[in-house]
């Protein structure tokens, strides 16, 4: 390998070996890991996964040759210092025109064969077309390489996952402590955010909604919290690039018997679906069991769009076992996978209710990462 092996962290060395094998297998001379700068919680970020850093700006990439010579391309010259501090890659360059910089790099590194693009699915059309042009069509989609290699967070990520889970607990705890009658939704969301950001959360896929009948979880609006409102929260902080999600429901004041009755259906669905999280089972079984529970209670129609479809999903930026947990998902659950299971459900009597947790698959079953009990909460004003 062209980089100084002794300075490359062991997990990266393992990645490089796997990538080298993949390039050989797929007949590729190099891989271009690409990120647009638009971040998605539901995807592995190719540049972060490869380099260990999320660059700012519109285009970032890592070109890795089949001899494992790595060069990083970033958009902003003033971001170089931070990038250099965080990445194992020595050669970091600023690219004003990304496609031209890739072309230059490919020539410099004498890459003669095909270049596989990892992150193709998110690459802007104009950039892809430019790369096709400057590389004389020697461009191939290589996303499957990443989706195969980045299915597990890895043992070394457990402390970060655990920390993110603690922050998710703190975020929900803020709802129970801070929600007040008359408070706008966005102010409550600000408190949730503060609880996690002040402890180091890097980002948050967070939605907090208060309503007497929600149709979906969405970012907060300006509605003021009313007595009896049902607060639904999807809280997803990130630590070191790992997201952990928690979904819960709280009611302002005492919960009605009807709400309690309906929420037990979610609890039943959660319990039964967690029982499906076993090594060797298929991910689709989690979804099917959830849907069976709701169907048994007369809500079959509400298990399909426009009400519901996805019953959980992987969480980026650094690993993703599968993108969504739906009935048809044939992926086999393996030890070490990490994903969220959420029997969130719209019910016509109560509106949208939420319950869900991130689990780490262990040999004997799922380990819930958060500590917040799986129950309906009440907030006394």
């Amino acid at each position, binding site marked *: 390998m062209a980089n100084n092996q002794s300075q490359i962290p062991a997990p990266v060395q393992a990645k490089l070996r796997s990538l080298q094998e993949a390039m050989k297998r797929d007949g590729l001379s190099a891989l271009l890991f690409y990120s*647009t*700068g*638009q*971040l*998605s*919680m539901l995807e592995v970020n190719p540049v972060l996964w490869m380099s260990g850093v*999320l660059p*700012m*700006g*519109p285009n970032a990439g890592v070109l890795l040759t089949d001899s494992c010579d790595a060069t990083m391309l970033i958009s*902003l*010259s*003033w*971001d*170089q*210092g*931070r990038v250099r*501090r965080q990445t194992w890659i020595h050669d970091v360059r600023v690219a004003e025109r990304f496609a031209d910089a890739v072309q230059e790099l490919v020539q410099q590194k004498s890459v003669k064969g095909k270049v596989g693009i990892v992150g193709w*699915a998110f*690459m*802007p*059309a*104009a950039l*892809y*077309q430019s790369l096709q042009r400057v590389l004389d069509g020697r461009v191939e989609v290589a996303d499957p390489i990443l989706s195969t290699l980045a299915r597990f967070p890895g043992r070394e990520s457990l402390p970060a996952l655990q920390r993110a889970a603690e922050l998710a607990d703190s975020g929900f705890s803020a709802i129970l402590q801070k929600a007040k009658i008359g408070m*706008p*939704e*966005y*102010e409550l*969301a*600000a408190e949730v*955010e*503060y609880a996690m*950001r*002040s*402890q*180091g959360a*890097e*980002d*948050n*896929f*967070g*939605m907090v909604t208060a309503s007497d009948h929600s*149709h*979906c979880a*969405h*970012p*907060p*609006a*300006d509605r003021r919290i009313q007595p009896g409102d049902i607060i639904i929260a999807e809280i*997803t902080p*990130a630590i070191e690039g790992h*997201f952990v999600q928690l979904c819960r429901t709280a009611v302002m004041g005492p919960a009605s018997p009807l709400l309690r009755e309906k929420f037990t259906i979610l609890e039943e669905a959660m319990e039964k679906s967690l029982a499906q999280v076993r090594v060797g089972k298929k991910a689709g079984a989690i979804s099917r069991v959830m849907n069976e529970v709701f169907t048994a209670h007369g809500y079959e129609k509400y298990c399909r*769009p*426009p*009400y*519901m*479809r*996805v019953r959980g999903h992987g969480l980026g930026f650094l690993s993703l076992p599968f993108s969504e947990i739906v009935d048809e998902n044939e992926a086999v659950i393996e030890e070490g996978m990490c994903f969220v299971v959420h029997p969130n459900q719209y019910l016509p009597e109560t509106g*949208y209710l939420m319950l869900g947790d991130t689990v780490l698959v262990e040999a004997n079953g799922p380990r819930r990462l958060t500590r917040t009990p799986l129950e309906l909460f009440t907030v006394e004003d």
Partner: protein
Amino acid sequence: METLHTVLNRGCSIWDRERVSEDEFRGRLGHVRRGMKERDVDLLLVYGDSRRFGHLAFVSHFMPKNRGALAVIPRQGEPALVVQEPSRNNPFSKTLTWIDEVRSVGQFAQGLGDALKARELKPKRVGLVSVQEQLNIREWNGLAKLLDSAELCDLSDFLASLRLVKSPAEQSLLKETNRILEQALARFEKEARVGQKEYEVMALVEREARRQGVEDFRFLIARSSEPEVGLRPAASFPIRKGEALLVAVAASYQRYWAELGRTFCLGSPSQELVRSHNLAKSLFRKLVDSIKVGSSDIGKWLLEIPSPAVKMCLESYGLGNGVGLELDEAPFLGREGAGKIQPGMVLTLRVCLAGKECGSALISQPFLVQRDGLQPLATPVEELVLVES
């Protein structure tokens, strides 16, 4: 200025009709359609994603929360908005836009196809705004197939030209965003303490902004104690006494962004820091003085700066840019083709010195361009802000 993007635009998400009315959008639609007619375009597609949605918000007021959306504007009749999202989100998405027809879809080609079919429209010439530049190749392939019989032309520059001068409603929103941001940044001065972690004080500033209804918030910091690293997101490093803290904050409110940048020092600054900030202040004055209605050579005075490091740093962070539906939008000052300064433009002016050979100081402020000069949109703070510790 660029910042690190977030996975979800998760602040207060509403359309405040009192601040920006449907009439404002109808007026914009009229301008857009006149341009379409002049260019013989019978359908305009305007794309935006959660990272950059200025053009899209200009025509729709819609802000994608975590994926993207496509405005479909025919020459006649009502426009449509195609949003990539689960269908259950549709009622919420409708609250963010004046466009009645909001189609929630998995793939844009499906939504566009349905919208065209409903209008019995087979466009011959289609204008594209931010479509190929931002939409991913997978989705683009679907659209290209759908539009394969049409001639395509890029109209991004045309729409950018419509956004250069801000309307009274836009100016009012920009003032409000700046007001919120000033209050948030005042938190830094009030709360920052020696030994505090960067993200702890960032969280206080962010909470202040989010409590006042911003849609999104950004925070970058650079420190004189690490001159090799420029502005970056807050980390766990503790704040030290006597160092310069360059803090840039940005937020959007009702889709309109603002950016403020100041230099703080906890305790007494060294002579070196004072010198560095005085240099930044004098450069900022020069920058402000160079902005005149009709001028286009904003960066000319850069040539007089003797230090190549200072010059390079100023260029790297940018001397300033338009600000509005995007944090950085045309005109990009000092860059080739920036065009002439016009009354009604709103500009962020910026002097950022961060590096081993150019010192540590940041001043960025928003201004409204008026015929007789620049009107500050935030209280001018060009001094080094000393924080008692």
